[in-house]
């Protein structure tokens, strides 16, 4: 019985990782850069909901919409101000360092505005928990919503990429930027769109994360951000189904190793599994092998 509880918790945690990992993987797939500020966009999203709902008393739905809109704008702005000027001109290392800088910038701004005191986040989910097997298994409303949102987002994103023009443009840019531009695709606009979608997903992930684990600080996003990055690499960075599989597998490994091996070694085990997977399959579970042209 407790195994099933652990498994459900693992899938729930993994679903949050998967939604965050999508942001990493899409940006990497299209802009070929690691957006380390992604984890902090999650934090901004959660703080927006906290500010709107708990501090200003707005309805939850308004808080959610506000948070998604704000994060989308933030994603586009970060890309426009911090990353676009460096694209092409500077080395990829410069962009990576800029991303780390943006991450610290967001953390410190949140620190200035909200202070470093931990805040208890009020859950945005109002669905009651489901009790199975005479109350031995309890599935919380947050878990249900997290898993469902993860599935919906995954299906929606796959349809978007395969069925719409903008999605096809994204695929084209990820294959070959130069050729896509020659075919009349606006590369800059496509990359902006990627950041917009990634950041909107980050806002949703932030709300789900803080609803399930209701503590909010300016550093809330950093550790889940790193774990989700691992999930993206694990599943094969650049691959959308890979992010889903990577996230959920990572969540399950984390919870099960906590339960059956050692509660304090869980992180070590997660990263060890990553190393082993990368040794066996360097591109991750679903990663494509890309032949570098000399």
């Amino acid at each position, binding site marked *: 019985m407790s195994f099933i509880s652990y498994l459900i*918790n693992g899938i729930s945690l993994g679903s949050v990782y998967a939604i965050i990992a999508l942001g990493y993987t899409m940006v990497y797939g299209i802009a070929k850069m690691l957006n380390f500020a992604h984890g902090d966009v999650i934090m901004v999203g959660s703080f927006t909901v906290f500010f709107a709902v708990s501090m200003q008393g707005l309805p939850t739905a308004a808080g959610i919409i506000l948070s998604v809109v704000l994060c989308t704008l933030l994603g586009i702005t970060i890309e426009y101000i911090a990353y676009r000027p460096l694209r092409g001109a500077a080395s990829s290392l410069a962009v990576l360092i800029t991303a780390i800088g943006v991450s610290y910038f967001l953390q410190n701004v949140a620190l200035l505005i909200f202070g470093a005191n931990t805040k208890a986040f009020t859950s945005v989910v109002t669905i009651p928990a489901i009790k199975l097997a005479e109350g031995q298994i309890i599935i919380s409303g947050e878990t249900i919503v997290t898993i469902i949102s993860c599935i919906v987002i995954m299906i929606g994103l796959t349809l978007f990429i395969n069925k719409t023009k903008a999605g096809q443009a994204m695929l084209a840019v990820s294959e070959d930027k130069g050729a896509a531009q020659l075919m009349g695709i606006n590369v800059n606009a496509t990359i902006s769109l990627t950041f917009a979608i990634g950041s909107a997903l980050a806002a949703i992930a932030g709300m789900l994360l803080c609803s399930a684990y209701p503590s909010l600080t300016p550093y809330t996003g950093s550790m889940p951000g790193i774990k989700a990055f691992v999930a993206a690499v694990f599943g094969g960075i650049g691959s959308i189904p890979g992010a889903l599989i990577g996230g959920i597998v990572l969540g399950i490994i984390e919870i099960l190793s906590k339960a059956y091996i050692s509660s304090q070694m869980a992180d070590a085990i997660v990263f060890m599994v990553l190393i082993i997977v990368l040794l066996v399959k360097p591109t991750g579970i679903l990663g494509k092998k890309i032949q570098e042209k000399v």
Partner: protein
Amino acid sequence: MKKFKKVMSLLLVAAMIALVGCGNSNGSAQTGTTDNAAGTESAGDASAAEENAPAQAADGEVFKIGAIGPSTGSAAVYGLAVQNGADLAIKEINEAGGINGTLIEYNFQDDECDNEKSVNAYNTLKDWGMQMLVGTTTSGCCIAVAAESANDNMFQITPSGSSVDIINNNDNVYQVCFTDPNQGVGAAQYIGENAVAQKVAVIYDSSDVYSSGIYEKFVQEAANQSFEIVSAEAFTADNKTDFSVQLQKAKDAGAELVFLPIYYTEASLILTQANAMDFAPKFFGCDGLDGILNVENFDTALAEGVMLLTPFAADAEDEATQSFVSAYVAAYGDTPNQFAADAYDAVYILKAAIEKSGAAPSDSVSDLCEKLKGAMGEITVDGLTGEAMSWDADGAVNKAPKAMEIVNGNYSLIQ
């Protein structure tokens, strides 16, 4: 990773200035200020303190007492309490004419509960001319600062740093609160002797000296008591939001009581998650749980019935506690917790030691320390956090613990 990020961010600031130049100079300046926010803020505090007492600072005829603690950050409840508690005691002493006729000057520095920042705060206070230190507030920082103060032979009394490593090999450092081992032993004895529960689970932070210190002694002492530890699970600083597994294990093991030798931030999450999974054992903690009712937006109904061993209860009936609480509420608008009382006591202990030793403000820091060390072994102080507190040569305090329970959203003493 964090270190790596720090180095990278420094590089970034340099790169921004070099690459972006004037075009974005506003941006880079802003990053600079936010990084240094703590520094500028504390510098502001220091200059404010100096402005308040410019005349006294001139001829060294005051005792300069410094204090350090996290007035922002995840442990801010403690730091603010220490800041205010010491402030209140010093104001009282100054109004009554000072120690042996000498007034006290006071300066508090924020360390955000970060070891490095705590040592920086210590150096800031030394530059200010500190002669005695009330601090630091949290154990980890206190170990780092005690190493520095031992080098300088600066007299240090920590209100709430409870690790044994603070006083081990540092004969200049004294404690007002219990050491971690004593808290662990005290908790086990209390649970056993009062038959609070038969099956006990423990959730502790293995990456924190305070928590793991209490845990080890609790387990040792539990062997001599009538209850049984049915599950003991750890978590670490990098993985402290999801407690579903630890709680599930405690629940499966049939625990009637969950012992939480941890700080209140994580404890508030544990209470929330236990409630979500319909697990309602008795929760029992040490002084780290003090402050749980002040977590912003936390549903305090969840903390109802939580028991904690802590030496101070704001609703105690005795006159000293009552007058302290009313003065504190009047000055800072908040009910004092144990940390405020510890800091208040720390200042009065300093006063008693100075009076006993006949130390003068013109003594050097090291001479002052030697005199006070001699006095600490001889004095007994009746304070808010214990009657007839005395100190052994290591610097650990002898006093009796008190158990409290949270009832109707307030800490109340179990008689």
